[in-house]
């Protein structure tokens, strides 16, 4: 049976992990390769690296990091952040990334989704969507959730599915950082209305939140950062809890 995926997300700036990472027995908590290896050993099903470098130099360092991760880590990983062209994606995939996550560039030029799916296959095209619920309506936002667009979450998600997205990574700006749980109502609607996998993001605080996003939110995968990085939730414990709730996991 296909299992639900648990995905730690690492923010990368100039080739180093940012945000505090507080793991036991880590030689260098800022080294994404060491962290990635550790997560793979601890039972993570996939990893996401989000490049938040603003400079060209930073992006080059990101490519080197991708190569090193591919060399040493034996689980799949996605790279996102600042990807805007077919050429960008070609370089990342050539360096060993399994998937790329596209956000603003797809909003600015939706044809990019078609081009990527056609050239590399839809299995490697993850469309990340940041959305905020305003007066009951889910509005897609740009630039890390700061700038509202005119797009409705569900319409946009359906459009990128038709254009060739292989997966949706939905972050609820209302939930992100709250540790109060995932946006399960919107997630369930996405999962029901679309026929591609949905990754839940934003709001993870407790193990019960993961149970809920798989049961109520019908998510196919759940992504989180700080609860894993600060050791608040151990992936193995989480998977055991999910299993006790009859949620299929790789354990």
């Amino acid at each position, binding site marked *: *049976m*296909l*299992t*639900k*995926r648990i995905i730690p997300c690492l923010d990368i700036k100039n080739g180093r992990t940012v945000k505090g990472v507080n793991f036991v027995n880590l030689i260098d908590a800022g080294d994404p390769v060491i962290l990635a290896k550790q997560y*793979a050993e601890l039972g993570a*099903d*996939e990893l996401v690296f989000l490049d938040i470098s603003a400079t060209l130099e930073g992006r080059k360092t990101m490519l080197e990091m991708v*190569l090193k991760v*591919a*060399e*040493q880590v*034996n*689980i*799949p990983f996605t790279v996102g952040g600042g990807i805007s062209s077919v050429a960008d994606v070609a370089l990342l*995939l*050539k*360096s*060993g990334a*399994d998937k790329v996550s596209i956000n603003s560039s797809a909003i600015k030029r939706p044809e990019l989704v078609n081009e990527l799916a*056609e050239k*590399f*296959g*839809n*299995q*490697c095209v993850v469309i990340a969507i940041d959305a905020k619920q305003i007066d009951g309506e889910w509005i897609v936002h740009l630039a890390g959730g700061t700038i509202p667009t005119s797009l409705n979450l569900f319409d946009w998600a359906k459009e990128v599915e038709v254009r060739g997205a*292989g*997966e949706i990574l939905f972050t609820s700006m209302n939930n992100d950082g709250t540790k109060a749980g995932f946006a399960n109502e919107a997630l369930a609607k996405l999962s029901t209305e679309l*026929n*591609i*996998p949905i990754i839940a993001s934003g709001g993870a605080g407790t193990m019960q939140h993961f149970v809920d996003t798989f049961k109520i939110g019908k998510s*196919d*995968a759940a992504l989180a950062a700080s609860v894993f990085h600060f050791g608040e939730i151990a992936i193995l414990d989480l998977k055991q809890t999910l299993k006790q709730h009859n949620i299929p996991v*790789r354990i």
Partner: protein
Amino acid sequence: MKLIIIDYGAGNIKSIQFAFKRLGVDAILSNNIDEIKTADKLIFPGVGEASSAMKMLKESGLDKIIPTLKQPVLGICLGMQLMCNSSEEGNTTGLGIFDVAIKRFSNAVKVPQMGWNTISRLKSDLFTGVKEKEFMYLVHSFYAENCNESIATTAYEIEYAAALQNDNFYGVQFHPEKSGLEGERILKNFLELKIKN
């Protein structure tokens, strides 16, 4: 051991090359027919769309060569699918090494299947030391039906072939290079398969 990854322009070859490097083997990338013939073992990778990948194989003449190889050949993901008779993806013919057709999952399930699923009914030296219901990473929208050449099965919508074997030809639908230590064990088993003279 001369291990060649057939590099015909389709797929995430780096990951496969790195996986073998972790096992201590330097795999050579090649699309040169003469060189391919000299390999002890071969990997036939593939990610992407079937009919365009088949077109690339035809352009390079590899479509004629691969079925004649006598060495152990391991097809991975789309590589495995191209070794079958035909694929519904782009309605293409395949290399005809495995006597089975590739079909698409229906929309009763999410497509692509993406993630870790279990493999069962293991019957091949490829799986020495791998336990029943071990988890492997899969990403695909098309599948090979269960058939006489199945050496492992998995289930998503229906039970289907997770791996195939016909004589010296092996194929796996999952990605052993991305399936943790157990995936690496399968690659190691492939390296250790006896070569027939």
